[in-house]
């Protein structure tokens, strides 16, 4: 079964980095968003299984997206992929409902491990 995936990052290179780190045997349909507002528009209009979410972004940052997802009861697993690796930030995103925290630059092996741990593979 194909999973719907949304990658939200203000960096084109970072979005590409996530795409090429996705396991080749995982059937996915990928969409992208350049900031939190674009991501929320997509999340409100269609079912997304997995959101890969950056934190430090213009317009609406990743924490803002997580808060909105909680407030609006949007169903979706969020994997935060961020350069902001402070332990307090990792705790904060998990408290806001994120499934996992991965540090940038994301590596294919780490991403696959996390997807397996959380039952997507």
């Amino acid at each position, binding site marked *: 079964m194909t999973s719907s995936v949304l990658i939200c990052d*203000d*960096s*084109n*290179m*970072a979005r*590409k*980095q996530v795409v*090429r780190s996705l396991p080749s045997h995982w059937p996915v349909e990928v969409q992208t968003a350049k900031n939190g507002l674009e991501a929320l528009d997509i999340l409100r209009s269609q079912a997304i299984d997995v959101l890969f979410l950056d934190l*430090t*972004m*213009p317009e609406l940052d990743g924490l803002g997206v997580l808060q909105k997802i909680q407030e609006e009861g949007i169903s979706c697993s969020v994997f935060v992929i*961020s*350069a*902001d*690796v*402070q*332990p*307090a*930030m990792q705790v904060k995103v998990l408290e806001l409902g994120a499934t996992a925290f991965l*540090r*940038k*630059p994301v590596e294919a092996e780490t991403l696959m491990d996390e997807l397996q741990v959380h039952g997507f593979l």
Partner: protein
Amino acid sequence: MSAFNLSEDQQDCLQELINVAMGQASDQLARYLDTFVHLRVPSIEQVSTTSLSNSLNQEQESVAVVSQGFLGYEGIRGEALLVYQHKDSDCIGNILGYEPDELSIEEQLIDLSSILTTTFLNVFAKQIDNQMSYNAPRLLSSGQDALAVYLQQLSFNCDMALKVKITYQVTDFSFNCDMILLIPESAIIHIKAVIDRILEDY
């Protein structure tokens, strides 16, 4: 074409390399201060070194600046300035938990700046398969004239530079500092070559 004209992809790549380095520097700062550091999206722009001292003084009525030069392989070099408002530099001892007279404000600023600069630049260098060496950090005399003179006297003595500005905001203590990287035109050419190598993989 000027060396400063980065393509959209080059600018995006540089910004992402900076984001990763900034994230790890903020983690070091957070651990050092035992608190949380709020990060903003860094800015990248072309500036003249003569206008930089003016803008520093316009943005902040009075500032303390710690400067540290860096030099890597392949002609990559520049100057890192850590800019503190005086209200922040004056209370840095409380934030760091020093007793009065234990360490001068100047020494504390230099310590903190060195941690931020070297962590940031080591992570940046690692991502581009480079390695940095550093000059000793030094606290600059405050005042517009002194800053202007210093910036003119930098070893690379360029008229224009790429300015990368990163703000570290420690909300628990209402403490801010800006890291400003100045990269001269001659080094930009080398950085662009490195970025192009990275982009070839994407």
